């Protein structure tokens, strides 16, 4: 039985299919990368899987259980964790407090309302352990909004992992990072135990090659390739799309801006 199975998943916005008949399955312990140009529907796919939005068609199964109708917090309770692309975790709270929110939920004491949190030794201990595991101990008392971008993203992953999910969805964990920060993040993710299945949206080919067991390529909301990183990279369809993408990424890094091919701008157009 697959850890995660997505069947014929679609999400329509007006006339546009952000996700169009996507099917794939991920085995337990697998590291699966979801790639594709901007606008290919990757984050929408994640949002469908984690329950932020509901599909217009299709089904989602977690360990064989149909979770298509389940709400986000129910899916989290069933063992699904995720990080967000543009989310700053809990900005004004310290890193320790950030992680402890996940830990207290995992330990089932989140509803206790009389005893001070400081007296929940088990929560505090486990939080300390998670921080150590992710080498964030030195940042324990720093407020998240005072951290560098790279460390913030690391905290995001730590918080999600602290929940001890069965499957972890990482939404562009290395976006906007310097090469050294990216390396750190890759090490981070590598360190995650194989008991956790990891689904990761990524643009950076190096990261994918380091981390992923398999790759699913999306384009205009559809799956156009599915296989090992080597197979996918070698595929002519993927190359056609990706060469354009890599050029754009390269040019972008050089400070130029290049219009992405084949992408219509979403907003008003000429007006």
């Amino acid at each position: 039985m697959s850890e995660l199975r997505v069947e014929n998943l679609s999400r329509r916005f007006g006339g546009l299919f952000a996700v169009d008949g996507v099917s794939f399955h991920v085995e337990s312990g697998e590291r699966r990368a979801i790639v594709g140009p901007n606008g290919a529907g990757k984050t929408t796919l994640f949002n469908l899987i984690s329950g932020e939005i509901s599909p217009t068609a299709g089904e989602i199964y977690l360990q064989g259980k149909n979770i298509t109708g389940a709400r986000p917090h129910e899916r989290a309770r069933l063992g699904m964790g995720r990080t967000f692309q543009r989310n700053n975790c809990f900005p004004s709270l310290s890193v320790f407090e950030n992680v402890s929110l996940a830990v207290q939920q995992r330990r089932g004491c989140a509803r206790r309302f009389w005893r001070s949190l400081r007296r929940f030794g088990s929560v505090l201990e486990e939080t300390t352990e998670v921080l150590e595991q992710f080498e964030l101990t030195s940042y324990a008392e720093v407020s998240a909004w005072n951290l560098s971008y790279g460390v913030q993203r690391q905290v995001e992953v730590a918080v999600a992992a602290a929940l001890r999910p069965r499957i972890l969805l990482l939404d562009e964990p290395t976006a906007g990072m310097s090469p050294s920060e990216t390396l750190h993040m890759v090490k981070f993710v590598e360190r995650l135990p194989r008991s956790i299945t990891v689904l990761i949206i990524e643009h950076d080919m190096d990261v994918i090659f380091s981390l992923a067991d398999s790759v699913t390529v999306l384009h205009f909301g559809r799956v156009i390739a599915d296989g090992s990183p080597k197979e996918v990279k070698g595929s002519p369809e993927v190359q056609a799309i990706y060469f354009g993408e890599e050029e754009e990424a390269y040019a972008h890094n050089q400070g130029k801006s290049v219009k992405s091919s084949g992408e219509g701008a979403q907003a008003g157009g000429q007006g």
Partner: protein
Amino acid sequence: MGEYRGVLRQAGLYSSRRVRAALGAVLALLVVFPHFSSSYILSLGTEVLIFGLFALSLDILLGFTGLVSLGHALFYGLGGYTLGLAANHLDLTNSLVLIPAVMAGAVVVAMSVGFLSLRTVGIYFLMLTLAFAQMAYALVEQFHNFTGGDDGLARITRPEFALGGLSFRIGGGMEFYYYVLAVCVILFYVVLRVIHSPFGHALVGIRENENRMRALGYDVFRYKLAAFAFSGVLGALAGMLHSEFNIFVSPEAFYWTTSGTVLIMVIIGGTGTLIGPVMGAGLVLLMRNLLSSYTEREAMITGIVFILFVLFLRGGLMDVPAVVRTQLTKIRSRARSGKAGVS
């Protein structure tokens, strides 16, 4: 902007000896205060405590859960009118019955209103809370046979505790002050415990990032509902105290001006701190009392002061030490670089 203290940090703060000593000193001051004040000042002090409780109750929603309510007067009026209706229609003045009744009523109202309002995005919640409070105002004004309408309800008594054959009445002036002080201290302690608990931690998490909390498995709606009920109960108790203070209640208790006043108190005092709202209540009431003896334009000035706080001292009074420190550091470093001849 004020640096919010996460629950763990705040709990740590409150368990430090210095803070505890300070709190103890304040409490001692509050206890001896009546013996050194005129009846006018005592009256003002009682009002500050009552509004401080009211502001604290709103801060649970605003500062800790991140829910902006413009209709908190709904609970305030509920507390007062529970007393008024009980006294006038049921001849019931026993606080041992009335206090639980006020709390139960607040829970029922919070659940109903919350059910309709808490599943909406922030801006609608704001509008809905205001609408519900106004609805209460309109209904109370309307059913004047039952509620006294615009004339309000009198025959509310000072608190009376009766059990079996024994009864114990609290009088006016100092006695009433101590009653209010006791209630406020007890409730402040309760809020302290709840906020510093894992539940309070969850509320703060919701304030910081609701979606993230859902992704962690928290049923955010239920937490919000609980916070709303908790805050409502405290607000209703404040309203109850106020009607006992005035031995009177009127529809104004539900009016947007009441919701507005308490919101201003919370912002001026400093959201998400427990002391802030109480200080805000003190400042606003003090300001009002001073102004009203010199001018009729008290509302306008309050509005201006409020705007200034929002623009320039958003963290409120609680932020003053931090702001002063920052400014002093700036001045010192400028002086230093001036001496060294560096621009």
